[in-house]
């Protein structure tokens, strides 16, 4: 069930350069949302910016064991995120969600590798907690699904890394890469992953070239791989047909909507 609510900002915290975590009070939505799903956020009482923008669930917020809200983490890149960074505690945002399919609930796997580039780390905190049985989502009680979760996380430079301590605290092994070598290993995150060696299942989120490199590596290793895609979206609910990606069909390929058929796809289903 998709909800359309006005949610007030509870806090706004700077996590890294141009990167903020915004916390929204929205109990019903937060109780329903699962890792890998997203929400559309919109500023009220303006037509510029006009459309909502999609943001992944960073994590739900608990108070005395009750789900009261959720966090998203965003990088200031354009008109909407610049305005978002100016929003103060107590002000409302319009929220539509939960949206999208979310990450697959894995079971019986040994070691899962999460691969993030740029601001693509944001959907993974909740997923780590779900996979390791730290927290339940969407009304499910927590249960451990895999033995080990590692996150391979690459950014351009050290001061853009956001959430690393939280990933560690959630129980993930963290491997970092920066393009300039200012944090972790120097180079691309997919090169870091290659040096680490195969895991039992891969999940990626980040820029397109990174996802393509990841999917090639998964093919080479014959490892199952899921990717969470980010495409320009106008509505987030499936009515505008903007956010399409090429998906294999019996007779070639067809465009499918990332907002309703994704954002998480099995790499084997994507027509590359």
């Amino acid at each position: 069930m998709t909800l359309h609510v006005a949610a007030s900002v509870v806090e706004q915290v700077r996590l890294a350069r141009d990167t903020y975590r915004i916390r929204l009070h929205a109990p019903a939505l937060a109780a329903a949302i699962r890792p890998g799903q997203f929400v559309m956020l919109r500023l009220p009482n303006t037509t510029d910016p006009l459309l909502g923008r999609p943001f992944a669930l960073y994590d739900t917020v608990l108070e005395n064991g009750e789900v009261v809200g959720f966090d998203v983490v965003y990088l200031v890149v354009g008109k909407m995120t610049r305005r978002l960074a100016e929003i103060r505690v107590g002000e409302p945002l319009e929220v539509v969600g939960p949206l999208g399919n979310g990450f697959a609930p894995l079971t019986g796997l040994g070691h899962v590798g999460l691969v993030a580039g740029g601001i693509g780390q944001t959907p993974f905190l909740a997923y780590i907690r779900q996979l390791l049985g730290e927290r339940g989502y969407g009304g499910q009680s927590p249960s451990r699904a895999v033995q080990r979760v590692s996150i391979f996380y690459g950014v351009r430079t050290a001061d853009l890394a956001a959430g690393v301590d939280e990933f560690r605290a959630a129980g993930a092994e963290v491997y970092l890469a920066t393009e300039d070598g200012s944090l972790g290993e120097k180079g691309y995150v997919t090169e870091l992953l290659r040096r680490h060696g195969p895991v039992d299942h891969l999940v990626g989120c980040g820029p397109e070239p990174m996802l393509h490199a990841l999917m090639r590596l998964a093919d080479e290793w014959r490892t199952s791989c899921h990717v969470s895609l980010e495409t320009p979206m106008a509505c987030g609910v499936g009515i505008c047909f903007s956010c399409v990606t090429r998906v294999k069909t019996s007779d070639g390929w067809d465009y499918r909507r990332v907002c309703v058929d994704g954002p998480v796809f099995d790499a084997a289903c994507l027509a590359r």
Partner: protein
Amino acid sequence: MVDLSVRLGRLSLSNPVLVASGTFGYAREMEGLVDFTRLGGIIPKTVTRLPRIGNPPPRTIETASGMLNAIGLDNDGIDYFIQHHLPYLRSLPTVLIANIAGKNEDEFEEMAALLAPQSGIAALELNLSCPNVSGGVDFATSPDVTARVIRRVRAACPFPIIAKLTPNVTDIVPIAQAAADAGADAVSLVNTFVGMAIDWRRRRAILGNKTGGLSGPAIKPLALRLVWRVAQHVKIPIIGVGGIATGEDVMEFLVAGASAVQLGTVNFYDPTASMRVMEALPEYVAQLGATRLSEIIGSLQP
């Protein structure tokens, strides 16, 4: 009690608030968000004779208080529509207006004939005006072709006919007049205005299709003026479309001469807007001292 019902030729609506084709999917996507009983009617996404893959992404880009789209009539064709979308759409507790686009006059006629035996369709809207597909879909730039399509569709099916016209013409009045003369029950004014967005750093058009149709609050004054102009010259009812987002916007279009309206882009950024807009109308109509919404249609003072 204010009576919100309106008549569009052979089509009757319980209230004038429709949702525009291409901005409401196939309605299923909005289940749970929108109470369909409160809508005047639903116009699902344009269906074509054969499946169309649509344009390469990016397909939309936001502009100042608006957006450009070049989806390219991505749809699975009329056979799929009849089998998979129509059963759901006809089950909804509101009026269903199917929207079709042919590549040529034959395809329009063929689709009308395929829909003719189907139950649950209250009217047909002809997309004579999508700006984003090559191959001559811009029928409504010619009064003669517009008239011929409408006559053939009228002969092929029993439904009331609504012609959705393009604003991308020198003068829309002769085209609307041709639609009226050919037997259209109403005209929808207007489809999107062709526009463009450029990433100058990369020296590239942003949309995969390079150009797209501008919609949203940015175009409301343009659409309003065209509705007003056509209303002065053409006798058939007008459905106003273009940037309508509030009850007050609806009132402006009604006073200008529209008998009904379609909400489009607002569905993308405020999925529950149609219900809120409908609920605002009785109070506004009453403020003008009217008891029936139909009293205020075209009531602009000279």
